[in-house]
């Protein structure tokens, strides 16, 4: 475990500068938007007094690098600022929405694993049959389909025609189903293609020929030997995809009026609630980094062939 611990340490050390870079970008956002930062933070309706308070609190009259240090200090104390629209601390606004998005992303990952891997295995084991071609064509279409359009198609079928599920909103499982299927479609298609490709590659290797030669049945070869090895690239994709789903839920959440951080981000842009925009972008990037870190560590722990 000594080598693993060293890898863990190196990986953690590497995350710090990345997080700093992300915070620098989020900080820069307010300063890159044309206009007076104090007014952007305070909102269009703010009085001169409020603006003076903001200037003092954020040190906006001081040099940029000092402002950045003040910003970092606030971040360290968990202060992301105050929403212009609601007047409440941004962290309080983000937290419940973040949990909703997390729920949506987790549901989508579950669907991806439950549908994508079996589809890929099925296609690979029935290689060059109509079933293989059909599922790969479906996967190609899945990758090409705009996620917001797929969401609307689901609304048309399941909410307008069949009236089985609500067309939007946030609540229990009923509200989660359509957005989760919509969000998952792209990754299901990708995982199916990836699983098929890596399974076919593994099935052509020497140890599979050995397994065949010693008389193992095809299912035993497929599930006992090939699949375990073939799933490694799929798992890498999934870990990357999870972070992507956290941020990429912007479109799905907007279609289904689902109260997550993605929709909150878009609404805040239209409301010119820039402190919130800054906060949400920071939170999404940080969770993306952390998810990838955890996935990396799990991955190197699970697969001893990965060099630390």
């Amino acid at each position, binding site marked *: 475990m000594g080598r693993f611990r060293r890898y863990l340490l190196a990986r953690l050390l590497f995350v710090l500068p990345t997080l700093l*870079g992300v915070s620098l*970008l989020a900080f820069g956002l307010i300063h890159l938007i044309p206009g007076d930062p104090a007014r952007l933070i305070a909102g269009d309706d703010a009085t001169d007094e409020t603006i003076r308070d903001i200037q003092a609190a954020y040190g906006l009259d001081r040099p940029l690098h000092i402002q950045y240090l003040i910003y970092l200090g606030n971040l360290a104390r968990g202060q992301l600022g105050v929403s212009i629209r609601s007047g409440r601390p941004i962290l309080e606004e983000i937290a419940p929405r973040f949990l909703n998005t997390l729920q949506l992303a987790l549901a989508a990952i579950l669907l991806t694993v439950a549908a994508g891997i079996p589809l890929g295995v099925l296609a690979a084991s029935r*290689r060059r049959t109509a079933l293989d071609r059909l599922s790969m064509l479906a996967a*190609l*279409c899945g990758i090409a389909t*705009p996620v917001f359009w797929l969401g609307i*198609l689901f609304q048309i079928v399941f909410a307008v025609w069949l009236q089985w599920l609500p067309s939007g909103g946030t609540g229990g499982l009923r509200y989660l189903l359509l957005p989760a299927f919509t969000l998952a479609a792209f990754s299901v298609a990708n995982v199916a293609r990836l699983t098929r490709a890596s399974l076919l590659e593994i099935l052509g290797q020497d140890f599979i020929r050995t397994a065949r030669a010693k008389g193992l049945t095809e299912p035993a070869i497929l599930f006992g030997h090939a699949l375990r090895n073939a799933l490694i690239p799929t798992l890498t994709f999934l870990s990357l995809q999870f972070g992507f789903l956290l941020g990429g839920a912007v479109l799905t959440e907007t279609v289904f009026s689902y109260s997550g951080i993605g929709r909150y981000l878009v609404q805040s842009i*239209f409301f010119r609630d820039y402190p919130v925009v800054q906060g949400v972008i920071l939170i999404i*990037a940080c969770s*993306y980094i952390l998810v990838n870190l955890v996935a990396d560590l799990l991955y190197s722990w699970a697969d001893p062939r990965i060099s630390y």
Partner: protein
Amino acid sequence: MAQALTAEAVLQRRPWRRRGVAGLVLANAGTRAGAAIILAFVLIGLFAGSLAPYDPMAIDLTRAFRPPTWSHLFGTDNFGRDLFSRVLFGARYSLLTGCVAVAIALAVSVPLGLTAGYYGGAWDFLLMRVIDILLSFPTILLAIAIVTIVGPNLQNAMIAVGVASIPLFSRLVRGSVLAVKQQAYVEAARALGERGWRISLRHVLPNCLAVLVVQSSLRIATAILTAAGLSFLGLGAQPPLPEWGAMVNQGKDFLHQSLAMSVFPGLAIMLVVLGFNIFGDGLNDALNPQLRE
């Protein structure tokens, strides 16, 4: 054997010289189907003016929400505008967005990736750390951040999607430069005493072209999807421009009156993206025969 070959002979063997452009475009079923779809959309975009039966912007409220008929193939929208004509004109914006975005990404990423991959060292290290930071943002998020700064319209969306693709592209270019650098013909060029920048431009870059062309095709597809997504959110093309993403956005409020308003523009996005994806995949197979199962 390698020893028997002169350095000049090795240089002649560069893989990209073997097949012409036409040979590659028609290489397999994938490239042919993809090229056909792309060509169809290019033609539609070019000749939308003569193909469209109606003015895509002409409002006629007495004709609102007509279902698809022979006189209005896709029906009409909430303003009575002919959806078929609007979808035809939409091809222009979609193709232009994909190509401009990828051109921006290439123009910045190729010099960055080439120098980082070929020369390595501190520049490579620094660049890769910056790219790691930028890759902590999902592409669409980066594009949204850029649009927030520069303001929402079609041009800015193209630029935002292009800039947002730079990190990924740079890493890709660097990766393939690193692979090509190990090849015998690069060593041969070095043995013949060519200078570093000459080798990187004359020998390394042309041999990365295959990867670049495949990736460009696939990234055009992604760029079209991302830009349409921005327009759908209201952060890209603005109404009344007949851009497909913006049209789906308008249609989503009228699901009970007209399905055509959101169904047809979305279908068009899917088809054109499918075309670029199939073409890219097919090209990849043609250029890397050993990967083909």
